[in-house]
């Protein structure tokens, strides 16, 4: 059995562009949910807007990459305002409902409408030339964790962004601004009574988290060299939330470690189980198709055990969870 191969695969996936994309989605959710207490069930919408607007602008109109990125960020801010302005004055549930609906609406629109720009189920392709032309790496494929030259470039840029955004999050959350956000998570009315404009702060948090998610959409798009609507289904947001809880909400490193571990474990279990299924003894109970399903069952089991024995996540503070008990 090829354990080394499985481990290399786990590292490849754990640090791959998809992990980076999810990681940024989870960092965005951490700002919104972990710090400000906003329940955003439609983070996928922000990533899809990032990927689609940037991809379509480059592929259809030949807009330079940097401008396309700025355009996509502007659209993301607009989306956050559209979702936030009517709902953030209301109870937390309303934002959850509106975001989950918006994510589905956008996925369907991108997948079926405006085909000249979004190309239906085929998705948007042909927008990576500008980004790849910046690649300074020499041309030798697969020397590091079997990444190709293009993939390695995307991953490097991606992790650079994760580090920068994590540092920014860290700086923001130790400032009085971050303190206000945590206060809002605890009790909005108390914050109003202390003269804080709760509504304004919630909108800021929603925008900031959405823009970080949008950057994750860029990394995903450049990594896959295409943008496809079905990537951004509801599972996407829930997996990102799972990563956040796994790593520990309201901790800067929580979403980062959560995303890497989630992908690494998923990938490792996948290759081990597939290899096991090739043995005739095991194949009686589990064939190769069933292996991928059992993999998800095992991940579910690990998550359940984690929530039972370490409900605060890997980096969380147990005392905070104890406060919720009474």
């Amino acid at each position, binding site marked *: 059995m090829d354990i080394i191969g499985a481990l290399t695969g786990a590292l490849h996936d754990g640090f791959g562009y998809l992990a980076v994309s999810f990681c940024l989605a989870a960092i965005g959710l951490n700002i919104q949910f972990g710090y400000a207490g906003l329940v955003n069930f439609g983070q996928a919408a922000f990533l899809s807007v990032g990927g689609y607007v940037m991809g379509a602008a480059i592929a259809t109109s030949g807009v330079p990459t940097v401008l396309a990125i700025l355009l996509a960020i502007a659209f993301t801010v607009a989306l956050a305002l559209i979702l936030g302005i009517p709902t953030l004055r209301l109870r937390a549930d309303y934002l959850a409902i509106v975001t989950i609906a918006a994510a589905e609406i956008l996925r369907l629109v991108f997948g079926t409408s405006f085909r000249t720009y979004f190309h239906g189920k085929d998705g948007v392709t042909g927008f990576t030339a500008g980004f790849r032309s910046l690649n300074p790496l020499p041309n030798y494929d697969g020397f590091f964790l079997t990444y190709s030259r293009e993939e390695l470039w995307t991953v490097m840029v991606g992790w650079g962004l994760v580090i920068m955004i994590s540092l*920014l999050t860290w*700086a*923001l959350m130790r*400032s*009085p*601004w*971050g*303190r*206000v956000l*945590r*206060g809002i*998570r*605890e*009790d909005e*009315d*108390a*914050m*109003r*009574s*202390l*003269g*804080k*404009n*709760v509504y304004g702060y919630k909108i*800021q948090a929603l925008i*900031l988290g959405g823009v970080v998610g949008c950057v994750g959409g860029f990394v995903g798009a450049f990594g896959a060299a295409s943008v496809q609507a079905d990537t951004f289904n509801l599972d996407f947001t829930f997996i990102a939330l799972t990563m956040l809880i796994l790593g520990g909400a309201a901790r800067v490193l929580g979403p980062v470690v959560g995303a890497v571990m989630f992908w690494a474990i998923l990938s490792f279990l996948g290759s081990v189980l597939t290899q096991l299924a090739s043995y005739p003894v095991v194949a009686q109970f589990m064939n190769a198709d069933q292996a991928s399903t059992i993999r998800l069952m095992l991940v579910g089991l690990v998550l359940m055990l984690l929530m039972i024995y370490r409900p605060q996540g890997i980096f969380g503070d147990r*005392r*905070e969870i104890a*406060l919720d008990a009474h």
Partner: protein
Amino acid sequence: MPTDNFPNDHLSSGAARKDVSAAGDTSQPRVPDPGAGENKSMHECRTALQLVPHEAGAAKPDPIVVVNGIRRTFGGLTAVDVEHLEIQRGVITALIGPNGAGKTTFFNLLTGFDQPDAGSWSFDGAPLKGKAAYKVARLGMVRTFQLTRVLSKLTVLENMRMGATGQRGERLWAAALPALWRAQERDITDRARDLLKRFKLDAKEADFAGSLSGGQRKLLEMARALMVEPKLVMLDEPMAGVNPALKQSLLGHVKSLRDQGMSVLFVEHDMDMVREISDWVVVMAQGKVIAEGPPTSIMSDERVIDAYLGARHDTDISELERVIQVEHTHDHAEQRADREVPR
């Protein structure tokens, strides 16, 4: 319960007051002495109330809050309907009334946590109609809540810092640049520590606010409200759920607010406290202000006693028993009817 017997023992209130104030003084930590001139003007504030007629809606010599025709209805129920009310500056005003009188709703309306259907009101000359709650707080009208609202997963010190207004570091663009707000943060922390010391919470500074006891939370909430540097402190049932020992120190703290030149308006059911520290009492019943006056006279007021005990409280006891008997049998009949309904 003190609410039950207050109309009868108002004559003995003088003795009770002496006891409580003595205890309050010893338990009260040293506060910076307000200037002598301030003291004198405060004294004037209180003596000025002696000339105010003891009637609902009476005009005050120097009102900090003026309310005109505020009405709030919830469906068919009129929760608050106050024609005119003035709150004197620099004194402690108590707002009392039986349960459901609309005191908390009135509080919510004044502080912008709820909007009335009609009426206008002003604070320190500034009209407040339609102003958001956070803007009201910034103007210097700060409230606490009936059920304490501490920020559980923040430390006691962080809770305190939150109260300071005009923080540069609370703006998103400045937040990532500590150089812009570090000095201000240091000042705020110093002020927070001073207040914590005064409220005897300094040892708890690094603890999560959620780990404090009920009474300590009340203290923290009051101290945090002071971080806002309010002109008017509005306390919604500050004594609810506080043990007798802590009550004395809370009383001392409330009095010290007045001594520092702040105005206080509080809702309270604890009549001992009302009698002990308030300079003026406003009585609400069924959404309306029914009486006003100094605590000694208000507690013998016929309308107030009626509001608390019912207009027929001095009817012959045998007659009341008959009424209760009738209601009792009626209840039983209803219960029996309920039980007979097949499930």
